[in-house]
């Protein structure tokens, strides 16, 4: 038993230092992927330095060294991030401080600062990566940080690592129910002020202008684009045309978004037919547009339906985004003609593609009805030997001519671009729509995952009164692409995900692996759907569904009431108040003593039960037998180790009580 003095200014114990080193390593791991290399080197140097200080092989940095180190770190941030402010630079700066603090940690106070900095660094990590794996991993970091806190206590307990870790983990486990309660019921606020957002890295995905080759490139990517789950039954996959944006300008080579499309013009449309309700969780795309089936409306704030019926958010989607959409597939879109529409949807370059233009003029002559013309065009793609391939032969100038009349091999972008060109040349307003088609249904989770290789382009043309009509020339060439997906459509040429050997998607044919992949995907979807997306609106929806109402009072009642319940549960488990009571035999014996005390017989503190009982038997000769009977049972249970029900003992006491005359107070006999 040692006696120690307590103070915050005390040097930190060895065990706490070990915990701090471990905790720091665990906190740093998730950051390793986005930190500049020098920070990692700095961390390793600092950790080594601190270990050497502990081994008395090195000294603490002096004031000058500290200034130099801090300035060096700041300079490093400046050079690697180009600024000292902003989330990216700020996080590197914070981590540098976290790393440098370790070297000068001598007292408990320093250690506390280090631990709290550690918590911040963990939070910073969440801004860069919010996957489930990371969240689970950070539980380890947090346990280690808590263990450091415990290790700072001046107790022999804190010197033993496993009990310390068990206590830290135990406290986390006990805190978990309360944390869930807070998570569900704590009111979510909108951002209080705008903060620098993490810079999105290079994200593969649709861009606002495409050459035909671009989509072929996208089709090599197995990355997830978004997931969607429908409230009702899922429509057949051939109807799942996820619109992202329209490409209306053609410069002879590329299709790109029209500048007019940026103007916030409310499109005209009428809802018709059945509505589809679904929600979408988008992966970060660094683009402002959202994905929806035609024609969709969303309740997501600061998001609007643009003039070409795409949904656009006020700023690029930099982190995964959850939104709900209601779509009317049969809606009538822009039935009224307008000069602007004509100008946008008939634009063509001045020259080029002479054969296509000539063929368009010929078609126009033959078919007066635009609808018939479109049909004829589709028939053409169907009838002629066109080939759907991810590896089209390269074409030079007048790519559309070459594709339509020479090579006849192409990808969805080729077909959509060529068809739009021909329609426009024939005087029918048309445009290319870029987005995704189909997706992979996850049977376990009843949702659909859409990957980058599902990227697709199709055509919309405009008819007076009927408005915009969608049509997909690729369907004429390769119906499997639409009905079953890209993998089946290009099965012959083995070009599916050729570049990504390790993508799990490549191994869909192996049953158990696919099962595993789908379950894992489902787990991640649940994580995104129910954890990451649990913000203001989702909270309101959920609570509305659970309680039928949603207001502050409900939140308060749930928080206070639920919190109280959970805490009492934890308190019961921790304090075990029932343990404090003496064992049942003892309680009965106390009753025996009380009973005899009423007859003037009080057991002295040091008097054994038998001696007391004998004394009582002498004093109360008439009840002697009952007294001895009680003693026999008591001794048998308490000292002879004969297991017996307490009831037996109680019975013996009751027997004695009956034989004794009733006395209420203690007599002085």
């Amino acid at each position, binding site marked *: *038993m*040692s*006696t*120690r*003095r*307590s*103070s*915050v200014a005390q040097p930190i114990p060895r065990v706490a230092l070990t915990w701090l080193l471990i905790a720091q390593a665990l906190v740093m791991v998730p950051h390793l992927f986005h930190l500049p290399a020098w920070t990692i080197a700095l961390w390793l140097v600092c950790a080594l330095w601190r270990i050497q200080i502990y081994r008395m092989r090195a000294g603490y940095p002096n004031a000058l060294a500290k200034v130099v180190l801090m300035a060096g770190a700041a300079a490093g941030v400046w050079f690697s991030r180009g600024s000292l402010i902003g989330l990216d630079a700020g996080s590197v700066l914070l981590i540098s401080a976290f790393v440098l603090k370790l070297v000068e940690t001598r007292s408990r106070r320093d250690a*506390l600062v280090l631990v*709290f900095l550690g*918590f*911040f660094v*963990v*939070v910073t990590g*969440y*801004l860069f990566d*919010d996957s489930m794996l*990371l*969240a689970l991993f*950070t539980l380890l970091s*947090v346990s280690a940080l*808590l263990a450091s*806190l*415990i290790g*700072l*206590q*001046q*107790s*022999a*307990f*804190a010197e033993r690592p496993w009990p310390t870790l068990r206590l830290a983990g135990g*406290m*986390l486990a*006990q*805190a*978990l129910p*309360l*944390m869930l309660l*807070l*998570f569900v019921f704590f009111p*979510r*606020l*909108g*951002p*209080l*002020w*705008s*903060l620098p*957002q993490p810079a999105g890295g290079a994200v593969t995905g649709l861009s606002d202008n495409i050459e035909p080759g671009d989509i072929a490139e996208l089709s090599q990517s197995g990355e997830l684009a978004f997931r969607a789950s429908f409230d009702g039954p899922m429509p057949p996959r051939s109807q799942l045309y996820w619109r992202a944006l329209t490409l209306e300008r053609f410069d002879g080579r590329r299709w790109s978004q029209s500048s007019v499309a940026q103007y916030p013009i409310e499109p005209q449309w009428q809802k018709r037919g059945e509505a589809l309700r679904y929600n979408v969780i988008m992966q970060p795309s660094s683009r402002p547009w959202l994905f929806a089936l035609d024609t969709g409306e969303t309740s997501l704030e600061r998001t609007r339906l643009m003039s070409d019926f795409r949904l656009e958010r006020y700023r690029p989607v930099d982190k995964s985004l959850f939104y709900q959409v209601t779509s009317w597939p049969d809606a009538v879109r822009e039935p009224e003609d307008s000069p602007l529409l004509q100008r946008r949807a008939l634009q063509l370059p001045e020259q080029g593609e002479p054969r296509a233009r000539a063929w368009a003029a010929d078609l126009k002559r033959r078919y007066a009805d635009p609808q018939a013309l479109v049909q004829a065009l589709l028939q053409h793609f169907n009838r002629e030997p066109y080939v759907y391939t991810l590896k089209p032969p390269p074409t030079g100038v007048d790519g559309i001519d070459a594709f339509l009349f020479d090579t006849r091999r192409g990808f969805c972008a080729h077909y959509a671009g060529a068809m739009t060109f021909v329609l426009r040349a024939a005087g029918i307003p048309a445009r290319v729509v870029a987005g995704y088609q189909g997706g992979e249904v996850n049977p376990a989770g009843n949702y659909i995952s859409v990957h980058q290789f599902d990227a697709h382009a199709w055509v919309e043309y405009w008819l007076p009164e009927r408005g915009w009509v969608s049509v997909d020339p690729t369907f004429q060439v390769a119906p499997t692409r639409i009905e079953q997906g890209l993998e089946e459509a290009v099965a012959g040429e083995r070009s599916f995900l050729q570049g990504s050997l390790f993508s799990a998607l490549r191994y869909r044919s192996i049953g158990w692996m696919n099962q595993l992949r789908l379950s894992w995907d489902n787990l991640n979807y649940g994580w995104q759907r129910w*954890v*990451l*997306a*649990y*913000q203001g609106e989702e909270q309101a929806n959920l609570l509305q569904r659970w309680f039928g109402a949603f207001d502050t009072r409900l939140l308060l009642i749930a928080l206070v009431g639920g919190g109280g319940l959970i*805490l009492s549960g*934890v308190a019961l488990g*921790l*304090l075990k108040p029932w*343990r*404090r009571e003496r064992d049942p035999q003892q309680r009965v014996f106390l009753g025996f003593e009380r009973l005899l005390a009423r007859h003037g017989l009080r057991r002295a503190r040091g008097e054994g039960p038998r001696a007391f009982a004998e004394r009582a038997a002498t004093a109360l000769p008439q009840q002697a037998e009952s007294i001895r009977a009680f003693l026999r049972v008591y001794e048998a249970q308490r000292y002879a180790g004969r297991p017996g029900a307490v009831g037996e003992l109680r019975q013996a006491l009751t027997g004695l009580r009956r034989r004794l005359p009733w006395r209420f107070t203690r007599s002085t006999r």
Partner: protein
Amino acid sequence: MADTPLRPRWDRWLAKRIPAAQRVRLDQRRIFIVPSRVGAAFGVSLLLMLLAGINYQNSLAYGLTFLLASVGIVAILHTYRNLAGLVLKAGGGGAVFVGEQARFKVLLESSGRAHQAIAIGWPPAELQSLDVPALGLGECELSQPALRRGWLRPGRLKVESRFPLGILVAWSWVDLDQALLVYPRPLPGDLPLAAGRGDDGEESGSHQLGQGADDYQGLKTYQPGDSKQRLHWKAYSRGHGLLVKEFAALSGRDLHLDLDALEGDLESRLSLLCHWVLQFCNEGQAFALHLPGVQLGPDSGETHREACLRALALYANEQRPGNRP
């Protein structure tokens, strides 16, 4: 609550809530718990993390904030649990002289679980920290300077614990009803003749009083309580066992220490007497002590010494140990 006008009320309230006792078991009536300074820092950190969660709309940041806040709340139970059920017992302590450190022994007894890092002491002095094993016993010695003679009653004892996280402090103020006798500070000085001996005025100085004053009578076997100064070591080494030289205490030649025969202020007179009591006891002299209303001896030995010192400590300073001033 150092010296505020609320102090007396606070004391009264405490005395009612946690009455003085030799044995105190800490329970929910006696334990107070609040966040410590570290806890405040922890709270501020949580607030900042919550702001990050709100502004970045980041569920995981929310989650970590809530998790740590819940850990903080659960820590209330843990911190309380670490103190609850602890039994404090007064372990007594020996008498001291003014100017020395009075040492009080406090026993901490676990009535079930182990108690970690229990700090105990009288603020503002630093607290001592110790662990009490499950069903075990911890012991610590606390000291307080003895400034005045008489009964020394240390104030309420502070028992606190910050285990496990240090973000909360649970504490209690316990009065173990401890008291310890403080003897006057012994101050050497000359003893006036009248005070030094009986009525036969011999002229020798006080310093020579001890030597050869009494007649050697013979040996007797040692009995507990005999002065160790008079042990006949030579006989012991020869294997005759412990023998004690006996001196005849000649009546009329006894040494008398008399308060009234001295001059000066009361405290210095008591200090002088104290010095001579110790001196005579060391020399194995028999002596008598006269205080107004108190007459001790003539006698020698430990018991007499204790009685004299006690009388000196309590003279005109009668505070019962059980009564609060």
